[in-house]
């Protein structure tokens, strides 16, 4: 019996499960992000980078001392969103508005994380799990 952490149809599509998320994600996710260290931040979405192999979102967050902190979050590839009820326009419509992002934080404890959920300005919650979980 071979280890198969995902159903076979996943494997059929993306070859071998343990390589899957890394391959889709283009780098070794668990080496960069700590999946046990979840952080949620709310702030103003200021930038969207909508390209392969990952999407990136910049959120300006008011810190504890009132200073503005810039958080970067990494999302799946655009194709992940493309056939779902959310797209580039949804994210761009939230630029300049308040969004909430739950991420698995980078292991270097920088203000960088891998998106688990992203709550758009209109309240729509976009989940990147299980790929990013």
């Amino acid at each position, binding site marked *: 019996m*071979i280890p198969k*952490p995902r159903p076979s149809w996943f494997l059929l*599509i993306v070859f071998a499960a343990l390589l899957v998320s890394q391959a889709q994600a283009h780098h070794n996710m668990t080496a960069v992000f700590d*999946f046990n260290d979840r952080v949620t931040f709310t702030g103003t979405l200021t930038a969207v980078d909508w390209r392969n192999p990952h999407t990136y979102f910049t959120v300006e967050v008011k810190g504890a001392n009132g200073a503005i902190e810039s958080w970067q979050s990494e999302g799946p590839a655009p194709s992940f969103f493309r056939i779902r009820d959310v797209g580039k326009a949804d994210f761009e419509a939230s630029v300049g508005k308040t969004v909430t992002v739950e991420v698995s934080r980078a292991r270097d404890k920088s203000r960088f994380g891998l998106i688990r959920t992203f709550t758009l300005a209109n309240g729509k919650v976009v989940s990147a*799990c*299980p790929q990013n979980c």
Partner: protein
Amino acid sequence: MNHRIQRAVLFTAASLCFVLTPCQTLGQELNAEAKSKEAVEARTKRNAQIFQNNASILTLLDRYGKPTGKVGERAMYEDAVLSPDGKRVAAIKDDLENESADLWVFDVGTGAVTRFTTSARTEFVTTPVWSPDGSRLVYPAMRKGQEAVYMRAANGQGSEELLYKNPGAFMDLTGWSADGRFLAFAISDIKGGSLYILPLEGGPERKTTEVLHSDLRVFRPRFSPDGRYLSYVVFDKAEKREVFVCPVDPAVHEGPWQISDGSLTSGYWVHGGKELYYVARDQAVMATEVTTSPSFSFSKPKVLFRQKDPVPSDLQNISSDGERFLVLPPARGQELQQLTIFDQGGKAVKKVGDPALYSLGAFSPEGNRLLVMKKDLDTGQEDLWVLAVDTAKATRITDDTRFKVTPLWSPDGKYIFYSALLDGDWPVYRKAADGAGKEELLFRHTPGAFVGLSDVSADGKFLVCDSGGVVMLVPLTGSDPAARKPIEYMRDEFDESTARISPDSRFIAYRSDEAKPERFEVYVRPFDATKPAPDEKKWQVSKDGVFGANTFFGFPSMLHWRADGKEILFRALELDSNDLVMMAADVETTPAVRVGTPKVLFRLAGPVNSSLGGVSRDGQRFVLPINVPVPPDKTAQPSGAK
């Protein structure tokens, strides 16, 4: 990678023109475009092909390898396990339509079937484990983005109990201690893994204990009957698997002990923990005598019985008495591949060599040699070989357990380029096509990122690569591979891959899903390697989709410029059947670009695997590994040691 997965890749996923689309986001609906009648129909046809090429029936074998019964209907199963008394089977069954997977229980004697879970769209259950007394089942399930372990009575009655919420994902839960107190699971990523035990006593705040951490990937922990040891399987950096045993108590500084010398499966404790069984690389079921008291020791493994089928069954589970083996036979039966050369009319004009387990075939530039991927029938190892078309004389290019993908000829026919999975990364190598000398490392990309090759420039000065939907150029300047930096030549929101340079080096043909999601078409664009990005102008060549998976599979679709640059050949998307449909479109690039309407060259009954280099330089011949029944001289009855 196991045989089943590779077969699946060859005959289904690679044939479905399915982009590297991640699984559906939990709880999210498809948008209007994806819900369109056309998209739904394409998905349904795709699923039918996946099922046709991969569904199998759970089968029981005795200890001599002889079939003794079947369980359940033909379906796509995973992680089937026998109950402790051997009278029931718990298995995960995939629902392609719902993109989910659920737990089912089958009564071996009566054929009664109980559905245990009903997952929402895109959610799934994995790795069921029977309690030692057979009264309960535990299983991880992914629901609403949260993986958790649940327990339920094995008779299907009552509600399930949440045992543990995993902060991450993809637990490999396979062990339940004989005293009923602990579960064992593994979590690995591409750079290593750990074994854990989880106490069943206590509430939802149960704490796991890490038993072992390794910089190698670890899976399938199973308790010895006395609960003191775990058997597990390790994937080394070159993808070779071995069965190990380690103490459960992290404070016991003994072991781990390597049991196998190459294994396809994990280790199964049988006969009250007096033996460990596993399947060796040559498909032999091996038995090792073990003792666990006062400490662990084991004897040299011996062959219990040997599967001689070239296409072996996928072992799912072994009963604790060592008498029954639960397997999934190959979905398409015993088939090998005959390398066959076809002309433009689809007529077979030559067979090269004998049938074997081939997955790739590519013409050398001069057309007198074939680059093939061949799996050894005895070791299960897959390697690159060069075959002479006239004599079938074979020259070995690689000899290792790494997973090799996207092999290409150099333009002068002197070298073979390929990527190989090593320690979770995809370095690019080249080796002399006559097999001489050592392989040469050419390029390393971002750790963990896939790199597939799609072309080599005519002057050999740069590689064209795919990575994550991005087309990269890798200049082969200098002698230090670490100093070579890729140029992201095509990087946008669409998945673009398989870029092929025209003979005059002025254009590239490539695949992109920009027109429709989940569907690729071929485009042509001006090409200038001295510029950081291509001209925005482009011309669509194919009209109704092209065959082939993303190069992550290592099997990019046929896409070929005829030597005079006036024709582009490609394999069409064919969802109504498994057939291969070869297309050609006239192309003019001077004085202006004009693309003709693609026409069908020929159709072959499938499934047929095809590879990027399967078209001769002049576009007149096509090499394909055609499925054929296993010849009688390669078929043998299972042999037993007892």
